[in-house]
């Protein structure tokens, strides 16, 4: 289990981390969310000792993380980087060996990864000769070559096409099922909602919300109503006076209400407008939870 405990970090006047704490267990896939500049990358770098916190600690299975432990971790930084002129297979073998694998082990693992990614015919190519998408796949393989117990990925989905996103999801799920602790940051919240059960949301260097997505949504004091009515009047924004309209178009309206708001008057108003095609009442989605909590 990775324990991040009460991390503080200042750069001059800028507070990067202000008491950040959370945990990830083996076999858990955790979405690590937060607006730009909230301290996600600094937290991740702390795990790899690239940043030394002013206060607080990071522990793995209860122990401080030393150089040897760190070799069993895998890291994919936000700013991707490999050696452009190095051959793909040599590159993977090098990263395997940097993580403590023997040359033979690393060579075998590199072969398996290239086969799995369907790139075994490109093993001898220089990285720069590969397409952007394939370079991203090699980057992922470089982070996973040594079969890490903890995998930390900073914005793994950014810059991927839909097929790349699917491949990435498949790999993350597979790693988690095989018992690795996986943490990744992302701004694509719909994707996070589909993929993970748990998230941590950080703002201004502090964790503002964490837990299973389902609970976080239910815990919100707001509910969202989605109403669709067959009417000639396409803009329904003014049809529900006294209610907060989130979006409105083509006979559809999305309203935000408190969780104790009675629904009957709304149902009646909707029915008076025309034939009701849809009337749904649900807690906020992850995106809305995120916005509510970060805006505070």
């Amino acid at each position: 289990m990775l324990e991040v405990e009460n991390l503080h970090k200042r750069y001059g006047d800028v507070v990067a981390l202000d008491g950040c704490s959370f945990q990830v267990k083996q076999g858990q896939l955790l979405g690590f969310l937060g607006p730009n500049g909230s301290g996600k990358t600094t937290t991740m770098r702390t795990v790899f000792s690239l940043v030394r916190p002013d206060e607080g600690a990071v522990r793995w299975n209860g122990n401080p993380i030393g150089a040897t432990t760190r070799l069993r971790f895998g890291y994919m930084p936000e700013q991707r980087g490999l050696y452009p002129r190095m051959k793909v297979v040599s590159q993977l073998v090098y990263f395997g060996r940097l993580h403590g694998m023997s040359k033979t082990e690393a060579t075998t693992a590199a072969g398996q990864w290239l086969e799995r990614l369907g790139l075994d015919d490109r093993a001898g190519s220089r990285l720069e000769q590969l397409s952007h998408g394939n370079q991203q796949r090699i980057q992922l393989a470089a982070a996973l070559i040594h079969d890490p117990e903890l995998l930390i990925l900073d914005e793994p989905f950014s810059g991927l096409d839909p097929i790349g996103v699917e491949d990435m999801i498949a790999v993350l799920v597979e790693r988690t099922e095989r018992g690795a602790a996986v943490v990744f940051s992302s701004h694509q919240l719909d994707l996070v909602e589909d993929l993970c059960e748990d998230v941590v949301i950080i703002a201004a260097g502090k964790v503002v919300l964490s837990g299973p997505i389902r609970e976080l949504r239910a815990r919100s004091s707001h509910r969202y109503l989605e109403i669709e009515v067959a009417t000639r009047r396409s803009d329904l924004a003014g049809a529900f006076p006294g209610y907060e309209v989130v979006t409105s178009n083509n006979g559809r309206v999305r309203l935000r209400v408190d969780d104790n708001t009675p629904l009957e008057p709304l149902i009646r108003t909707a029915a008076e407008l025309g034939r009701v095609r849809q009337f749904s009442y649900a807690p906020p989605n992850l995106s809305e939870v995120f916005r509510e909590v970060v805006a505070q």
Partner: protein
Amino acid sequence: MNTWRSILLVAGRDFRERVSSRAFQMSTAITLLFVVGWIVVPAIFFDDEPEAWRIGVVGQEPAGLTTAVETAAGHQATVETVAYDSRADAETAIEDGEVEVAIDSSGTILVDNGISDQMQAAVITGLATIEIADRADELGIEVTEIAELFTGGYEVQSVAPPGAADSESNRVFAFFVTVILFMSIVTYGSWILIGVIEEKTNRVVEVVLGTLRPHHLLAGKVIGIGVLGIAQILLIGVVAMILLPLQDAFDVPSAAGSVLAWAFVWYLLGFAFYAVAYAAAGSLVSRQEEAQNAAFPLTMMLMAAYFVATFSITGENPVLMIASLLPMFAPMTMPLRIAGADAKAWELALSLLLMVISIYGLVRFAGRVYAGGLLQGAGRVKWKEAFRASETEK
């Protein structure tokens, strides 16, 4: 992961990637071609065959003239004589270029403006030798005694210890090593500089530093590129040594074994010192265009050391003495003093000690600067900021 495994892993990668790069292979091939051309071409076009001199003689040819002139010319020329009946014939022959010079037995040497000083001197000396031998003979002095007459019967004996007699050629050799050191630091230092900046621009350094300590990465880079550089120099040196005998006129600097060994030690120390400094400089900038700015102070130091060495090739002086104790100058100046047998044991010991301490200190310092500088974003980082920003070094 243990220290040496990390360092060797990094060194191995840098070495292999560079050896297999087209740029390295091309530059090695071009340098080799240049060296081969420099040695072989003059050997083909400027052969050292002795010149053929033709000397006109009017009247009786002095006995032994040919041998005497050839000896006086240091056997750099073969002499052939042509007899003329009259002085006028000889003058015409010189004008026509049939002979370069003519001897009139009445006591005149005929020349024109085209004659070389060397030839004129050889002819006069040759004639004088014959004259001296003749007169000595008349006086009843044996030919073997003539040499004694010229030295007054004294013999020159050196009281200098054996080896010191070579200090001139030793110093030339040491300077030769200084020049090679200067050139290799400039060349391979810039490779290290570029290599470090490349890793930074590629952002690959963030993953690499997650697995090993910054000073391991630094040491590995310096060793990998350093070994490659030394291998390249050895290759070029060996080729040059094989081909040089083709060129008789070139003196391969020879040196006593100890001078050679010390030169090698200082070469390695100097290389290590500057290579580490270049790596640290590289970690302070993030774009290749800024590389030369970052390396500017180092280049200046290097130039200063080189100039002190150049002006001190003739021998000991106070500037050389002080420079040979300072780590940034010692690798290029101390070998000269060792070669001239000018360095005292305590000076050598002090200089070595300072050198080793400063290399160690520089590795640690550069390790911190490296760690701080590598993870900074764009732009140029100041030494002090990078040093303070260092996170991983404890």
